[in-house]
């Protein structure tokens, strides 16, 4: 997986918001919501771990899987799951 060095500055279409998968390791992000079509059981689990809209998290790694930190929990998410989490645009 290649990372765009400044993916947050790349404009994106309104129809496809940025997902957690596209956030560079070492940076922080704010959860906007879940992608349409995210299974309900998955939503519940992600919510239970604290991935609620408005929550900030930091991305620790993107390989071999996405690793994030919320509060003091480190959570590992496979790329298909990370792609279900939409990230709020900066500011």
């Amino acid at each position, binding site marked *: 997986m290649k990372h765009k060095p400044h993916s947050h500055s790349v404009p994106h279409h309104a129809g496809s918001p940025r997902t957690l998968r596209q956030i560079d390791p070492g940076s922080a992000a704010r959860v906007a919501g879940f992608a349409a079509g995210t299974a309900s059981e998955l*939503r519940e689990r992600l919510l239970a771990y604290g991935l609620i809209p408005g929550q900030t998290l930091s991305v620790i790694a993107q390989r*071999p*899987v996405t*690793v994030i930190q919320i*509060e*003091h929990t480190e959570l*590992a*998410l*496979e790329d298909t799951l990370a792609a279900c989490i939409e990230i709020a645009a900066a500011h």
Partner: protein
Amino acid sequence: MSSELTASVPPGLLLVGQPNVGKSVLFHALTGRYVTVSNYPGTTVEVSRGTAQALGGLPVLDTPGVISLPSRTGDEHATTHALLGEANATLLQVGDAKNLRRTLQLTVLMAEMGRPMLLALNMIDEAEARGATVDAAALAAELGLPVLPTVATRGQGIDALRAAIPRAAVPRFRLEYPADVESTLDRMAAPLAPLGEGCGIAPRALGLLFLAGDGELEGWLEGRLGEGTLDTLRALRDALQLESTEPLAAVLQQTRMAAAERIAGRVIRQAPQAAGSFAQRLGARAVHPVWGWPILLAVLYAIYGFVGEFGAGTLVGLLEEDLFGGIINPWFEGAVRALVPWPWAADLLIGEYGLWTMGMTYALALILPIVTTFFIAFGALEDSGYFSRLTVLSNRSFSKMGLNGRAVLPMVLGLGCVTMATLTTRILHSPREKLIVTFLLALAIPCSAQLGVVMGMLAGISFTATLIWFVVVLAVLVTVGWLANRVIKGRRIPLMTELPPLRLPAVGNVLTKTWARLKWYLIEVIPLFLLGAFILYVLDRIGALPWLIEAGEPLVTGWLGLPKEASAAFLMGFLRRDFGATGLFAMGAALSPAQMLVGIVTLTLFVPCFASLMMIVKEHGARRAALMVALIVPLAFFLGGLLRFALAAAGWGQ
């Protein structure tokens, strides 16, 4: 004082909380009863019971961790089941102080159960080390229940907790859900009310679980409500769902999470965090796509050195050759010959298949030192939090088998004991994953006892032999897993798991755990070893053993190329795989390195021990268990023979 205490003692105490927050440590602290404790989520998969003597014999129940309710996996269902079944038990939620928001979203649900309740904020030391201070008194006021900071592993706060238990009351707390949810809950209250008294859960909480679609509750209700009432409830739920674009469970969860966020914001003070500690950086390295592998190899090599060379080499040498072979057995044999006049009875004790010379010597001199070193190494790793990192590292490999990295936990546990590991497959999310992992465990994962013997034998041949064995077994594991993924229908579930912090293993916990496992091991193993030696003795006496050995000759000698006496080892392997491996070990110099390797590989793949077979029957039914055995036995011999010819072709170890 004691009479006053007894008078107010609640009928029971139910420990609930999220995975890996320390429920089992607290359970041990309260009851003195040891249940396995580790630093990874999913260690407890069944409800454990004990009694707290200091609280007038109060029954205490430890439950598997639930991230949130409704319950979704088998181990989580066990928790809902305990909640419904233990009417009137006081709830003790154990929470991770450093993850207060997550803890509180469960608290705000539990607090409405209508049960007396307390909250233990465990690992408060780790929260403080990360710069977070929690105002326990303010939190108690917010929630209307006692909140007690604890560090269960070091016994801090336990006395205060013990004192607070008899005083726990039903919390004065009510979370306001969205208006349409509230009105549905109101309408569900009447049909659910008669049940509330029986199970001691407030109708409102039952309604919340029902709306979220808890499978365990649904089944429980079916047995207690008329079909008409249940249909009414389902209709109310469906109507509510139609009003919302989000699944109901997610709506409820979001409400709780928002409440948790508000409360946490008011009671936590977070100091700015310093740069990551050494443990945090090491933790990140351990899951790094490049650095992770050398770290894994280093860990494996350390286990090999400690268990294979020190345990199976040095310690076994001291015990088997010097202590048993040189001192105890000659003395014992002399005493038996002198005191027992009947040769058949003397043979029963000290003959080739003697209860003492085979059964006890195998168990105490060969296996005991090996499993002890293995349990120590394994316990230290469990405590360190490293196993969860393996989940991430191995995810890609497991995805080829239709599994995700979480499958590594039962697999690694299988290296300890395949029986326990088969039970642990309950942490997996789908029956399909459970089935594949159980089959792979039965086929290709050697348990600690067997692994120890195998490592000892392989280390005695050469490192190359160890490597060949490892590669062959791994290749079988991956290939069969890959095939199983094609054959068994269903969807793969992507990985989501928590990575607990890396910690230095606590010597006390590792030793307690090693001792608990050893005790269990000796109780299980010694009778089976004695039984195994006895069966062989009887077969030998009545002349059936030579016949069986002859009968096995085409397979054992013709196909595998082993001396026909090795048949006895495979026969023993039916009882326990390590018993079989030990049988090969005892043949020692009679086997060439290649023969030894073929024998070891075949036995590694061979049927699981009797106890784990029973566990497979329990978890998957007799039909599937029989099918697994019918697949595994021919496969083991087939691959063993292939290896023989491959080694011969390569000219290795002839």
